[in-house]
């Protein structure tokens, strides 16, 4: 299996040291890593959840708006950041894998490396009620 891009390795390294929840995906949207603070929000430690494709993580947490309407993957900030190569932000509700619903504010940004290579995207997940 190929080595990860340097910028992605550095992003994971940084995330693992931060106390804000961080979620990192590759250019195909595959979840590569979320850090320990994110584990508390998402209801499962990363080592148990493991890498998962975008089609899975974009639905497994059952994202909804304030009125409880399901959100399509294309409007999720991480997907916008990846597909449109621009930062995106949105408040939404998720249900963690521990079954607990939480309102989070998501700020996502694309990871664009040397030579304009799209390497993935990262998101800060902010627990609106927990902070």
């Amino acid at each position, binding site marked *: *299996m*190929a*080595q*990860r*891009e*340097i*910028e992605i*390795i*550095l992003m*994971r*390294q940084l995330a*693992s040291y931060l106390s804000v929840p961080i979620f990192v995906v590759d250019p195909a949207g595959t979840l590569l890593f979320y850090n320990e603070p994110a584990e508390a929000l998402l209801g499962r430690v990363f080592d148990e959840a493991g890498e998962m494709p975008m089609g899975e993580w974009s639905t497994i947490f059952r994202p909804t708006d304030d009125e409880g309407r399901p959100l399509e993957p294309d409007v999720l900030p991480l997907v916008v950041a990846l597909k449109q190569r621009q930062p995106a932000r949105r408040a939404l509700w998720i249900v963690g894998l521990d079954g607990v619903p939480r309102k989070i504010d998501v700020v996502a940004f694309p990871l664009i*490396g*040397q*030579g304009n*290579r799209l390497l993935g995207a990262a998101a800060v997940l902010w627990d609106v009620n927990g902070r």
Partner: protein
Amino acid sequence: MRISLWGTRGSLPSAGPETVRYGGNTSCVELRDAAGALVVLDAGTGIRRLSAAVERDIRRLDILLTHLHMDHIQGFGFFEPLFRPELEVHVWGPPSTTHDLRTRLTKYLSPPLFPVRLRDLPCRLHLHDVPMGSFMIASLEVHAALVFHPGPTVGYRFVERGHSLVYIPDHEPALGARAFPDTPRWTSGHDLAMGAELLIHDAQFTDQEYGSRVGWGHSSIDDTGRFAELVKARRLVTFHHDPSHSDDMLDRMAQHVRDKGRIPYDLIPGQEGMSFTIGE
């Protein structure tokens, strides 16, 4: 391929009686392909003495910079072939998102830091951003990849007729790999160095020193050994020696690695003047 070490010291030239055997000049390696084409790896102070080994009738040479820290470019202006009008010189360096290679090199190669401007060098100078991926220089297939070190820094892999040299003089692969060296996918430089016949690699610190220098972009000799084992290198040449390390200290560092037990590669502490041949 023939490889000669002209400078193995890191960070700062370190001439003195205590560094006579390993040498005090900073990073510079001469690489010749099977036909004799010349590629120079980094332009540390070792490049000055390399000048005398450059044939008068050579028409082209390439200088590949891993990055632009001072110890890798300090000798540039003292490389005599740059003053030959008939010589075509190609300089390759890592791309930056802000300034091109000429602009960054000119910060040093212009007054007041240096009397000769880059544009006034008599040789036919061509500057290139190193492509990420592979390209050819003479009969050498060159692979470049970003590696862990502060600022844009690349490592190089050279392949000729299936034989490989990997040069990563400034590198801290233990930094991003949480379970180093057990996670190849998350280890900087892994793919670049995999299966290298000769790996020239940063080994600046002892394990004890590294503890207070994490993030500086360099490796302990122990981590370098682990990296060499991970990538299944056949021969490891330790490089970028700390300027404060004497010859005796470098001997002890190498012995420390050997004392840990059988190592699956040949450990060769890099000394100025050493030469290697691959694939002949």
